[in-house]
């Protein structure tokens, strides 16, 4: 169930991302709804299955498909982020909300840094200081604003999914 749910959830979230969230800018940064949802799901994962990997792959493939970012960076970034969040979950397991904020902040910086590096490598002239102050930090702030609503929705979703699996 958890595996299959990744497809409709991320299709909807990717549509919301490119249609709504990417239109809202703070300086030049934007929120990353897909990444936050992925982080929230990885934190909700109960350890019985490994649906988080499937979720990361689906999210990464969808964002790589719609974005002009080269070399499947979103896919690689989301997989790396899943590893980090799983490690984080083991250490901050008693306070999932704190882990959520921490993982979102780290994840945003990680993925934006990967975007920045790959674009630099492919010849796009991006000044480092402007990228940090106008894109990365505002994006972190926007993502932290989105954390709570996304976390609540994903928690409800996880509670809907996992009891069904227990009965089965």
């Amino acid at each position, binding site marked *: 169930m958890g595996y299959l749910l990744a497809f409709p959830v991320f299709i909807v979230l*990717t*549509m919301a*991302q*490119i*249609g709504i*969230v*990417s*239109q809202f*800018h703070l300086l*030049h*940064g*934007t929120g*990353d709804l*897909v990444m936050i949802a992925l982080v929230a799901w990885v934190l909700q994962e109960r350890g019985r299955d490994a649906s988080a990997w499937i979720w990361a792959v689906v999210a990464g493939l969808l*964002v790589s498909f*719609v*974005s*002009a*970012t080269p070399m499947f960076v*979103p896919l690689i970034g989301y997989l790396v982020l899943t590893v980090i969040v799983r490690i984080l979950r083991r250490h901050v397991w008693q306070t999932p909300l704190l882990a959520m904020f921490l993982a979102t902040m780290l994840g945003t910086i990680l993925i*934006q840094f990967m*975007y*920045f590096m790959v*674009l630099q490598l*492919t*010849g*796009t*002239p*991006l*000044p480092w200081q*402007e*990228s940090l102050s*106008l*894109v990365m930090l505002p*994006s972190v702030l926007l993502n932290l604003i989105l954390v709570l609503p996304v976390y609540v929705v994903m928690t409800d979703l996880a509670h809907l999914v996992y009891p069904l699996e227990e009965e089965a």
Partner: protein
Amino acid sequence: MKTTFPRLWQTVVLLVVVGGVLLLALSGYLAPVFRVALHPFIAVQGWLSSRYQALHEFLTVPRDVALLRQRNVELENQVSQLQTQVIQLQQQLREAQILYALLDFARARPENVYVAAAVIGRDPNPFIQYIIIDKGSDDGIRHGMPVVTEQGLVGRVDAVTAGASRIQLIVDANSAVNVSIQSTQTNALLAGSLTGDINLQEIPQDVVIQPGALVLTSGLGGDYPADVLVGQVVTVRKADTDLFQTASVQPAVDFTALKAVLVVKNFKPVDIVPLIPTPSH
């Protein structure tokens, strides 16, 4: 006879008195008398009427309030429906205005074949400036086709699926457009940036550029058709130590409010990469 005369006189006197009173009343001489005489009756009548009104309201108002409340709810519903309709109509009007402007632009250039498309999204990566439109290869759109609005150049098609396309905007940091400054007929390179500003590069030092000069596509390189408006020069930066001068350009298109665009279908971009000489080993 004795009894009839006095009665007759009584009647005559009575008629004369009544007639006199009537005449006095009609001529207005008795108004003060009437006013004094009627005042107590009017006061009593007023009191009686007000008490009746109060009693009537007491008995009937609760039902009226219920009716009024119901009517109020109905009217509020009607108002909200009408407000929704107004918003929808305003939205349609805005869309129609955009489409009319695009249509006027397309009619003014009959040599080009356009496909109108709505902007349905933006790239999730904030470092790059791409939009997604709702027309793809099914509508004849191919990679590299230029995209414009009635205001000027937007960018070019970067990727195509059957039903949608991704457009690289000219403000993207990786975008480069060969342009010509209209007033001096000088060729230059227009480059985007991270912040969405566009700058003219590689302008020879001896050229004098005034702020406000129009910037058009030159057609060099084969990526874009010639003479499409790009923007206006805002400031010129010239340093004696540099090989070239640069200038910042105000884009003609408002990229933050793009709703619909036109893809130039009959323009085929030329790939000049094979013609660029490479150092032989």
